[in-house]
């Protein structure tokens, strides 16, 4: 990633990232729970694949927060 494209997050962006983390958490739990009860191997395989995809999304979102951490002002401007 290029450094010059990095800016401090707006409050709106921060809220979207936080909401997205909640969404991804819910999807991970739902996919894992459904995979544990299904008897259809095709569906189970797909759901396990979705769990991994949503875990990656979650990592991406957490990384974004960390990468923007140092750009955030410590006081309201």
């Amino acid at each position, binding site marked *: *990633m290029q450094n010059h*494209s*990095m*800016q*401090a*997050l*707006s409050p*709106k*962006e921060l809220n*979207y*990232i936080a*909401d*997205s983390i909640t*969404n*991804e958490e*819910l*999807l991970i739990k*739902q*996919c894992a*729970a*459904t995979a544990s*009860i*299904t008897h*259809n191997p*095709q*569906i189970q395989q*797909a759901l396990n694949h*979705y769990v991994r*995809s949503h875990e990656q*999304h979650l990592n*991406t*979102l957490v990384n*974004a927060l960390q*990468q*923007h951490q140092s750009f955030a002002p410590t006081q309201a401007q």
Partner: protein
Amino acid sequence: MYSQSLSSNGAFMQEQDLLKSILADLRRTSREYTTATTEASCPMTRRMFTDLTNDTLRLQGELFNLMQQNNMYSVSSKALRQDVDKQIQSAHQTQQKCQQFIQEKNTQNSSYSQSPNVSQHQPNYGNPYYM
């Protein structure tokens, strides 16, 4: 009462209902990612939300296909031919009106200056942050 939330086979919820719930959440999440993309001001954040939108749309499509293959998703009824015909007719009129409008505006423009003396504006849709 817990027993009230148990379905006939003793499971908390039927597999089909759980999958429908996941599908609905994927639909909602992709919508929220789209909104987040359009409202992001940091280019890097916009890029991230764009990628997450695309990936979530892909997962939603995959799950929908899988459920349809396993007869877990009833295909909705089909739009009638006469309704499609009507929409086509109306869409053709819209296209014509748009063309007329563009021509009118172009004519107005050319009445001020016959030939442009500046080079054509560079299109900005090649910008990677807005793709």
